[in-house]
């Protein structure tokens, strides 16, 4: 079943090649929806306390101990759902007149993303990991906005490829040059029993690969230009899903396979995450371009997850609260919540840019009057993003903060500054976009069309659903 959902977009890609161009959009959508439906069915049968489920395992390259090994457990259930939800939305968010190649690349990227979230063997996890990267590069370069896109695509590609290479080398070392298993589960078991002593350099190599993807300061330089230059649906995927690949990597690789190394460097990681949180927030404050602002906001939000990973490294279960579990669940929920929210915000930033032909914060104003529906949706998502209770982000941030406070109170207090700064820049953006007198050139800007509203309805519904009943979503990662 998992293979079916992973490769459904590939099938769609083949059909896109064979069938007439005007069907491309529908085919890509069909592939993505098929994945969503299968994921829905799987999660319907998912047993949170059942450990690894829906496992498919087959020897692939026996000489190198490489298996095709996929499965679903509490760690990846929710992120997979996130990816499969955002995939059809990304297709729907694509402008109408996109060529066949665009949908082809998009579909291939879906497979990369789904595969990276379900793979349990480093080797083919890595293949999917890269598979998600290459189409993104072409999508930015070929279909992006502005003159900057070539440079943005290149730096995106270089950063992520260098990170990947570091990670690959680390893993080659870890598996003793392919003589031992690449299997995440087996490696984790070995680490637990103390048989695995990878050492600091391997840890740092793998960490670097993940940090680029998240990204963490100072490996984030690719992020804002790429987010701003990419076509809107690709940005939705980049921020909504690809950044989560990095965090997921932390949960799947760093935490179980490098427990000692993580313990040794947990404070450093937390400080790094903290710096990123503040860095993103303060940079966002000075942006005049909506998309860049949202990009730095993403930087800030995803870093909270890494902050939680640091907590996982330090955590012992001696205190009054189950820090380990709080942090894990908080991270997973934060990934989900931020993925949905950020994708929605970028979508609307794209709509504004498309309507006005500009994306500067000062090019708008008083939009509440011109486009009331868009304003409502934007306010809701922005509020969800700044952690308003009863909306998606709050429960996750509370869990992360609660766990972090138990192990590192001082750092956590500093991190609240990040929450404050988030509120400042988001409200400033809201103020500039939606309030004040309405300038002439946006006075008759069309409000959300029916199709656009329909796309935003599931996003908003999820934002409310996660916020009001986080318990339902946390159940997936309860174990």
């Amino acid at each position, binding site marked *: 079943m998992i293979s079916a959902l992973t490769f459904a977009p590939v099938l769609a890609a083949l059909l896109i090649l064979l069938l007439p161009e005007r069907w491309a959009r529908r085919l890509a959508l069909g592939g993505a929806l098929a994945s969503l439906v299968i994921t829905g069915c799987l999660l319907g049968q998912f047993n949170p306390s059942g450990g690894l489920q829906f496992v498919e395992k087959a020897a692939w390259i026996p000489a190198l101990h490489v298996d095709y090994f996929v499965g679903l457990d509490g760690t990846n259930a929710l992120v997979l759902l996130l990816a499969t939800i955002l995939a059809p939305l990304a297709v729907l968010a694509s402008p109408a007149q996109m060529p066949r190649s665009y949908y082809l690349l998009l579909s291939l990227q879906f497979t990369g993303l789904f595969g990276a979230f379900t793979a349990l063997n480093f080797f083919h996890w890595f293949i999917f990991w890269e598979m998600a990267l290459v189409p993104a590069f072409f999508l930015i370069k070929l279909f992006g906005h502005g003159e900057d896109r070539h440079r943005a695509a290149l730096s995106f590609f270089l950063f992520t490829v260098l990170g990947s290479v570091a990670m690959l080398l680390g893993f080659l070392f870890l598996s003793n040059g392919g003589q031992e298993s690449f299997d995440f589960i087996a490696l984790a078991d070995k680490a637990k029993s103390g048989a695995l002593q990878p050492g600091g350099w391997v840890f740092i190599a793998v960490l670097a690969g993940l940090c680029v993807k998240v990204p963490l300061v100072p490996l984030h330089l690719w992020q804002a230009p790429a987010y701003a230059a990419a076509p809107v649906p690709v940005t939705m995927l980049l921020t909504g899903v690809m950044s989560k690949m990095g965090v997921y990597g932390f949960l799947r690789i760093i935490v179980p396979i490098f427990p000692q190394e993580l313990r040794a460097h947990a404070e450093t990681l937390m400080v790094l995450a903290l710096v990123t949180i503040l*860095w993103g927030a303060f*940079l966002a404050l000075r942006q005049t371009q909506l998309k860049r602002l949202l990009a730095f906001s993403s930087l800030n939000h995803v870093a909270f997850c890494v902050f939680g990973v640091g907590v996982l490294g330090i955590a012992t279960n001696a205190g009054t*609260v189950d820090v380990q579990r709080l942090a894990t669940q908080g991270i997973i929920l934060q990934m989900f919540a931020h993925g949905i929210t950020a994708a929605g915000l970028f979508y609307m930033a794209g709509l504004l840019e498309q309507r006005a032909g500009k994306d500067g914060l000062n090019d708008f104003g008083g939009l509440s009057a011109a486009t009331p529906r868009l304003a409502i949706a934007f306010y809701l998502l922005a509020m969800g993003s700044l952690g*308003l209770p009863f909306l998606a982000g709050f429960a996750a941030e509370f869990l992360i903060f609660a766990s972090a*406070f138990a192990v590192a109170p001082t750092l956590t207090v500093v991190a609240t500054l990040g*929450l404050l700064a988030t*509120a400042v820049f988001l409200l400033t953006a809201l103020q500039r976009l939606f309030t004040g*007198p309405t300038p002439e050139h946006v006075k008759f800007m069309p409000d959300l069309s029916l199709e656009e509203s329909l796309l935003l309805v599931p996003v908003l519904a999820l934002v409310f659903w996660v916020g009001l009943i986080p318990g339902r979503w946390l159940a997936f990662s309860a174990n």
Partner: protein
Amino acid sequence: MSTEKLALIPLLPLLAAVLTCGMRCGRRAAAVAIGAMSLSLAIALVMLANAWAHGGVQTVSLADWLVVGAAKIQFSLLLDPLSACMAAMVTFVGLLIFIYSSGYMKDDPRCARFFCYLSLFAAGMLGLVLANNLLLLFMSWEIVGVASYLLIGFWFHKPAAAAAGKKAFIVTRIGDMGFLIGILLAFTQAGTLELFDNGNGLLEKIPTGVVWGIGAAKLISLFLFCGAIGKSGQLPLHVWLPDAMEGPTPVSALIHAATMVAAGVFLVARTFPLFVEGQTLPLVAWVGGLTAFVAALIALGQYDIKRILAYSTVSQLGLMMVGLGTAATGAVGMFHLFTHAFFKALLFLGAGSIIHGCHEEQDIRRMGGIARAMPITTAAYLCGALALVAFPFTSGYFSKDAVLISAYGADRNLFYLCALTSLITALYVTRQCVYVFIGTHRGAQAPHESPPVLTAPLVILAAFALGLGGLAGNSLLAKLGAKHSEHPFAVIATSWAVALGGMLLGWVIYARRDLGRTTDPLALSALANKFYFDELYAATVGRLWTALTWLVVMLQELLAGVCELGVQLTQATGQFFARSVDVRLIDELTMDGLARRFHKGGEVATGFQTGLLSGYLRWIALGALAVGVFVHWLWK
């Protein structure tokens, strides 16, 4: 009615908020909101009776919000005299303000949206009041904050209103971050956030751990007080409250007089055991006292009718804090909160009526002679003013007396400060009333009386402002747990003296003056400029903030530069090696030499590229020949 129905009190306004969200017709939205609020009021009154009869704490668990391992955070409500009184007060004042709004806002095209926000606000406020879980309290607290943000910025096309909304949200959020840290502290120390939980609640079993070398209870109470400072506009976070007057007047009345700003005071009263245990009450009292004094002084120098009331509110909230910080229980402060809620809502609504009657004029220098034109409003307003001044036997008199007595008993300096504040209060109230009601009208258009939908709530509130203290004061204090205390003669004498003396002084200064044309003797520039708090913050915190952002931007640029430099450096290194002595060694053997050789080889190979098929084939055959020869004869 069982306590299970408690949940309906906040849920009904929430339902109204959802229903009115999509409405276009303002009148229908108003009807829905008012209906929901009336039902809430009815239930709240039943619950009040219930709490009165029961006396103790009753809790209701509604649902688990999230369960992570052993940690459980649930939506649970509690009913005790404190929450019941607050709920009844909020629903009652709220209902009156809703009714008033249906008249005040009826011409606004976004009237339905206004009622949506109001209902959302009421839901949040009631959730806050009834919450038995500190996190639920915080969540409702934030909903209240966002509703206030939306309502202050309701007229979003006015840049000032939008800026004021943002300021309110951010300044209170500074306090909220403290509140959040307090919650995290409580959670990690106690493992629960339930306030009352059959003896295991946070307030029943106060955590005794030590964090950063300080007792947990002390730290928790301090951080919670940060939240209270933000929400209740205490020094130094009071700067948002006067700006919040950019919102429609009913909003000012509801949020910035009666309910939301009282939330901070309520929070302190609610978590009072923590403050007692942490011995942080003197801090609360002194922050309150200073706020009361400073805000009262600033009120003297203001000309905007609503801003005077706003600073008056800040000042009164300070007095409530004094009441909380000096007494052994939260009763005294809360009593002042209740009476204040009525008379200050009355004053705001009255001010709204006056502004309405004066054609949206808010400057008291362009008012005057209102008494003749708007008799009902004037009468009601004066009732509120008397209560604010603590004129003997109005409700404000009883509650302020209680505060003064408690301050007198705890800290004599604080008592003097409060007495002085009361004097100034009487002075600025008199000043305002003289400006507004006496003399001839100085505005452009003649004022007119407001319609009954505006004045009816005024009359009701006026009755409460005058009567509540005398009729219900003692039983309220008793139920909220106040210890019976002596009424020292000195306090009573001071109280009478400052109230009457302040009014007399105001009359002497202002009654004979040619108002609005000559300078005001008390509106010193420091007072008119609010003691330069905003400027101070802009110069310090604002600068620091800007500097921080600049720093980060510069660092980012630097990092990008370093990245660029790395690329350049790699290229430069390559060129350096290419040009140095190694040119023959490395170049010839590896890079360039190899490339050159390949190139030459390429040139040779190009020679074979005749483009003729048979030519290529010949070479293939030659290769095969060579292979054959090699295999047969050379391969041993």
